């Protein structure tokens, strides 16, 4: 899929940011359900989805493995969720800065042509 304006890097960045957004949504849902009896932590296998879904599509939601289940059947670990929350935000910030560079490159090509 060749894009005439933005190159492959920009397309990969777009996909990366999209996936980060979806993951952040799951983290938000886990935090909101931290006190819900029987709720299981949800996540996506980030590396796998990023490698296999380059053409877009909906990532598979899995239950995060290896978390201790509390007495009420809930296994949300708040420390894990807050770590993921800030990790996702930082990755997104990095990706959006790179993307901004890509867009600036295109814009300067347009402006210099005047």
């Amino acid at each position: 899929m060749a894009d005439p304006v933005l190159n492959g890097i920009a397309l990969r960045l777009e996909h990366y940011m999209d996936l980060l957004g979806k993951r952040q949504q799951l983290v938000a849902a886990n935090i909101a359900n931290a006190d819900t009896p029987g709720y299981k932590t949800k996540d996506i296998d980030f590396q796998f989805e990023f490698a296999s879904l380059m053409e877009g599509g909906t990532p598979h939601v899995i239950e995060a493995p290896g978390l201790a289940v509390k007495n009420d059947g809930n296994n949300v670990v708040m420390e894990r969720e807050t770590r993921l929350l800030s990790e996702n935000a930082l990755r997104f910030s990095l990706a959006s800065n790179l993307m901004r560079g890509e867009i600036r490159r295109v814009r300067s090509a347009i402006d210099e042509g005047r």
Partner: protein
Amino acid sequence: MSLLSALSVSASGLEAQRSRAELLVENLANAETTRTPEGGPYRRKDAIFSSAPQSSPFSAEFQREMGSYSNGVEVSEIFEDQREPEKRFIPGHPDADASGYVAFPRMNPAEDMVDLIASSRGYGANVSAMAAVKDMIQKSIDLLK
């Protein structure tokens, strides 16, 4: 737009924790209440959470059509403590029974205070999640600058 629906997931968390805090405060306020409209002493209330579609109906409908997922939380039930009231011997109290015992709510203020702290922490966690997502949305908007 999954980032915007993440905001309403967090909003549902805020709403649920707030309703729980309201019930806990009500319990503390009514710790000594011997009269209620239903008759008898006040009974301790608590909320049961269940995961549910996010709070914004439009967004929830849209996400379902798109085959996407998003679990908010809601208060599915408010249950009343069914334990026997605590009997205190106060003869002459207007609500005393024939043998001079008054039924008071069976309540342990420590229990409610601990739950209140948990609820307030949960509220704070949802606020942090919202701030992080808002930051991501702002970053995306800044791409156009």
